[in-house]
Each structure stands twice: as C-alpha cells, then as structure tokens.
C-alpha cells in the first residue's frame, strides 16, 4: 500500500492541480480523480450524437488517397 502511494498512477498525475488531494491521502485522491472523470464523461455525454447505432451506420465515406 505504501508503495502504491509513492507511485501515483498515470491519471492521478493529471489532477496534481487539484486542491483537495494531499499527497498522503490515496482515498481522497482517488475520489477526486473519479469526480474528475465523471465530470469529463458527463460533459462528453452532453455532446455525443444521440443514436450511436444510426450514426455509426450512416458514417460512410468514399475512398481517397
């Protein structure tokens, strides 16, 4: 466990600016990270085309170079 604390995983590096994540508290860090990911996905959800199946079916291109 102590080892894990010393080696922050990839995405926790991305929230180093997060004011509520003290170095020592893994749980809090993880929570902040999850909140962060949730916030991202919530925002992406808002702009994603509504019918994925239909959109994917209709995305047809002609070949190019």
């Amino acid at each position, binding site marked *: 466990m102590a080892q894990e604390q010393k080696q922050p995983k*990839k*995405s926790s590096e991305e929230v180093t600016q997060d004011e509520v994540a003290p170095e020592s508290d893994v749980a809090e860090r993880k929570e902040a990270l999850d909140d962060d990911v949730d916030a991202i996905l919530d925002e992406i959800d808002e702009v994603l085309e509504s019918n*994925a199946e239909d959109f994917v079916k209709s*995305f047809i291109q002609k070949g*190019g170079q």
Partner: protein
Amino acid sequence: MGTEVEYGVTVQGQPMANHMVASSQVVNAYASATAKARRARWDFEEESPLRDARGFDMSRQVADPSQLTDEDMGLANVILTNGARLYVDHAHPEYSTPEVTTPRDIVLWDKAGEQVMLDASRMAALVPGTQPIHLYKNNTDNKGASYGAHENYLMRRSTPFGDIVRHLTPFFVSRQVVCGAGRVGIGQDGREHGYQISQRADYFEVEVGLETTLKRPIINTRDEPHADPEKYRRLHVIIGDANLAEVSTYLKVGTTALVLAMIEDKFITRDLGVDSPVASLRAVSHDTSLKHLLTLEDGRKLTPVELQLEFLDLARKYVEDRYGDDADAQTKDVLTRWESVLGRLERDPMLCAKELDWVAKLSLLEQYRSRDGLEWSNAKLQLIDYQYSDIRPEKGLYQRLVGMGRIERLLEDSEVERAMHEPPEDTRAYFRGRCLEKYADSVAAASWDSVIFDLPGRESLQRVPTIDPLRGSKAHVGELIDRCETASQLFNELTHG
C-alpha cells in the same frame, strides 16, 4: 515542407449523399464568401496556353449540383491568402498548407486549415436548400474506405532513393506510437473489434510504390517536386494519420524531418531495417501495450518504442555533431519532447494522454468502458472515435477535451486565426499569399511554383515562376510588395528591376 489533409464528409440526414457534390459545396462556399480567393484558379499545367486561364467564373459553381459534371467539380479549387490550397480531391475536401520551414509552422497552418474547413462548412450551410455538411479530420470510415493526411518534405535530389527506403521504412513502422491518431476497429473494414494505434496502418499493403489510393505503399515514390527537379525531390509521405493534437503533429513532422536530414547527410550508418515491414506496421498498430517485438534484420528484437529510441539517439548525435550548441531552439525542443514522450510511453502509455491523439482517445474510451461496462463492439465507442475528429468546437470530442484543459496545446487561438489569412514569411508562399491578398483582381491563376497575372493593357497573361521554395519570402519581396500599389507596378519591378 507542408501537409495535405483530406477530411471526411457527411451530410446531415443523408447518408447516401454524393460526397463530391458536398465537398464542392464546402469549397465553393468558402471561395464565394472570401472574395479575394475567388478569382484566381489553380494553375494545373504550366505548359498549357495561358489564354485558357482566362474567363474562369466561379459562379457556375452554384448551379444545381446535380447538373455539375466531373469537370465542373474539378474547378472547386482555390488558393487562399495564407498561401494554402483548398480543393476537392477524391470526394473529400482537402486543405494543403502553404510551404513552411519548421514543425511548429506546420502545426500552425495545419490548425488554420481546420478553421478554414470549419468556416467553409458553416458557409455552405447558409446556402438555401442545403443540408448541414459536417467534416471530420480522420482517415477512415471503418467500413473499408480510407483517405489521406500526407506530408511533403523537400529533399536534395542527390540523395539516393535506396537510402530513403532503407532508413525511413523502420522509422515509419515505429513512429505511429508517437503520432498515431487511434482507431476503434481492426482490419480495413473494421470487422474485428478492438482499438489500434493508427488510423491508416491496416490500409498499407506494400513496401514501396507509386499508388496512393490502392495497394498503398509505406514509402511513396511520387516524384513531382514542384521545384527545380535538378536540385530537389519532394518526398511524399502518405502513411501518416490526420492528427488533432498539436504535439502529435509537431513530433510527427519534427522527428521525420530530423531523420530525413540524417539520411541526406548520410549520417545513419546502423541498419535499423525490420523484417516484414507491412506486417510489422500492422502488428505495432494493433498492440496498444507497445510490447510487440520487431525483429531487426541484424537479429535484434526491439519494441517500437525502443526502435524510436534508436532513431532519437542517432538524431541527438547528429544535431550535436552538426550544430553543437548552435542548434536552433525548435530542434532542441523536438528532441526534448521526443525523448520525454518515448520515456513515458515505455513506462505507461497513458502518461501521454494530454499530448498524443491515440492515447487521449484511448483514455476517453477506457473511461467509458469502465463506467458503462462497454465491449469494444459497442456502437458508442465507434461513435466516440468518429466524433473525436468532428471539427466543430461544440461537437468535436477532441475540441471538448481541449476546452476542459485535458489536452496540451502549442498554439494560441489568435495566431491560428491570423494564419487563416496570412502566409508564412520565409518561403515562396509569402509571395503567393501576398499577391492574392493585395492584387486579387489581377491574379488569374497560381500554383505552388507560379503566380500568373492578368495585367491591364497586356495581351497575354504574365507568369511569374516561383521555382525555388525558399525565394519569394518576406525578406526577398516584402518591401517590394508593400511599395507596389498595383500588380503592373510589381510585375515591372520584378522584370526590369
């Protein structure tokens, strides 16, 4: 150097829409709306009678698209005041950057191209009766069709082509770990489910060749320098993905230019060739853990990152050997970033989620997979792949990630805005762009290597060749263009001055 990007195109509510028509509508809308770009046509054949260049009228482009023949559509082809070319190629709107000399300038004018395309598609939507047309900066529909994002590098003619093939092939097999754009789907038609590093890898079938639309080769042999053929060749690179992330584009072009410089200077003495380049290219793309082992011709087995580190090591020595402390800041920056990215890719690719397209996209997809328990076959993941490349700021997922501060940028919006209209200052694109901007009414046609004037009082059109890509820069002609109020004045000074 320069890049040319074909954009994917959809017409809202019309999956079977004619893509050539839609692409033409986009290009023509931009041509009509930007009056200065309107008159000059692309000069395809410098040998053809110049009279043919006269009488071109963009207005027939707004005829009912169903009445347009292929020939008419061939006219959807304009030159912009930033020196770029906007046209229709193979049923896709395409933007070619003006010629530039640095990787950062590639990023800048390539990004300007995204904004031009965005404006163009919005302008097309204003024409009554047209459905909205959406553009995607990607390279495949995951149903078998692929379209390109090419790079062009000016090289000395004296460089043996065999050297280029030998050293560049292993570089191209491995560089996708840095500049891949990421793709949901495996195989040309996306039959297998999963994620791979490159948009384009599965569409490459041979090692060397002239084709660009089928049997695509890792090394393309098109020899069309758009410059003095005695001195130069233009290396036409067709293997790259269209990148959204600025760092991806920057490193793609910056590292490739370094490797090409080493090849020109015969600096690479190690043979880094890999067995079965085409199969290896795909195997690298299909392994997002980056652990796939490439077999080198000397028997060593290296991961793609280790192979890139070999090139980095050579490049560091090359720059030290040739320039020492005098190396320019951007070259040093490319080396530093390259090393930093490779180091992190080796530890954990996800550490590059803010810089590299394929990692940013994968990171987002994995977050969705984990939150919603999605299999790779789920249409939502495919949708995310497409929509990552939608160039609209309100819809594009890359754009949303930038908006949320999840992507590192190299550029300011204000300079991109400027680069939509202003040419680079250190190549012939400066002359082309300024002439288009200042003497729009007198420029009959232009191309990479010429500007053709239609001057009052002269029977024939007057062609000014721009055969040397580094002449016609601001240093050469800036003051002259500032001083000349009319194209006639400019032409007289050029020919008699």
